[in-house]
């Protein structure tokens, strides 16, 4: 059994203190210790992107990090996108464009997209296609996801106030 360490992380604006095995991955920590099961495991070797979260504002594959590495960091998962009942423009756009079917890859795409749109708020279609090439979907064929991200980028530009992500 691995040794344990006490870590303190902030996730979706809330601070948690937990004792974790040093070998526990950040993805498992989020899902099991923090009960935030919106982040999914699709491969556990950094290829599929289903486990994508934001750490200190950057999109990372949480299956390739250890929980102990996130001590002192600010994490954001898919559960942070909606503000109460109000969906984030990305979420609304995904629904509008039928950009999900089974939904398993969706949280990873939403987090990747939210990081991408911060960097590139007015992307071209090709730039969006490129930006999501590190996330795998087996159901939609990507097209409606690209449509949704473009729709969301327009809406985010229109809004004067951006929800904090």
């Amino acid at each position: 059994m691995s040794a344990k360490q006490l870590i303190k992380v902030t996730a979706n604006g809330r601070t948690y203190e937990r004792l974790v095995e040093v070998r526990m991955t950040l993805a498992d920590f989020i899902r099991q210790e923090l009960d935030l099961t919106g982040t999914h495991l699709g491969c556990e070797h950094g290829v599929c992107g289903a486990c994508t979260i934001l750490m200190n504002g950057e999109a990372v594959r949480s299956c390739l990090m250890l929980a102990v590495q996130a001590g002192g960091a600010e994490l954001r998962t898919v559960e942070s996108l909606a503000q109460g009942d109000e969906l984030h423009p990305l979420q609304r756009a995904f629904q509008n464009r039928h950009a999900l079917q089974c939904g398993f890859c969706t949280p990873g795409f939403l987090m990747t997209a939210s990081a991408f749109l911060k960097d590139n708020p007015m992307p071209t279609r090709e730039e969006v296609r490129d930006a999501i090439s590190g996330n795998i979907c087996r159901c939609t064929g990507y097209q409606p996801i690209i449509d949704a991200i473009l729709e969301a980028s327009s809406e985010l530009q229109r809004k004067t106030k951006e929800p904090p992500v």
Partner: protein
Amino acid sequence: MKPAPFEYFAPLELPEALDLLERYGEEAKILAGGQSLMPLINLRLARPRVIVDINRLRNLDAISIATDGGLTIGALARQRTLERSTFIQEQNPMLAAAMPLIGHFQIRNRGTIGGSLVHADPAAELPAVSVLLGGEFVLRSKSSARLVAAADFFLGYLATACRPGELLTEVRFPRWRPDDAWAVVEIARRKGDFALVGVALRAALDDGGISQNVRIVMFGVGGKPQRMEQGEALLNGRRIDEALLRELSRVVAEELDPDSDVHASAAYRKEVGGVLVRRALQSALAKAKEPVSQ
């Protein structure tokens, strides 16, 4: 796919890190960006007894210019930082151009330049680029510090001159020669994948269009980055024309002795390696003729 048990340290200061590395020697694995190591650990293909996480070491990611105009980059500098740095784009366009070829942006957010170099996957871009640029690596241990040339650093498949107890702390590149024609290109099954075959090259062209100081380094073609010496010899001192380019393809294909794997056969890598070098050179020459743009 969960990691096997290990002991974990996250030192805050370099001496502490070097101390740990000396104490545990071969039993320790260094965790930097984790984008190469963690998949192996999750798959239990790597089962280090000890992990030394260097991400908390301060000042190991600094970028600076040396007095001789050379570029110095801390080993922990994130690939994404280098990719987006206008400073790097100015100081070393080839290094900047190699970055987007590495995986996907989520990977580059965590991946480090040092990590990629020490992992030494023969299909990776940075090892080949560092050999082409004549890079030098600072390797520190508790009791020593040494400088190893990139050309001597890569020994074979996932094997480098880095000894147990040593940590790569800094990468140094000679001053960039802005008048050189250069290119770094690769062929991959999908965008962001490791290269089936890739090349980094540069050449100086004198006023008469004669090439000098040609350097060609290929990746994905063997256990480590490969200098294509015959290809270089063919081009040096000659004016580049269509016939010479075709000859170059042939010579490179002959010189290559690559491996087969599930993604491509040795025959493919040989033939396409030759084609790729020709195209890379054509692209380098075309770029060199263009006025400098931002």
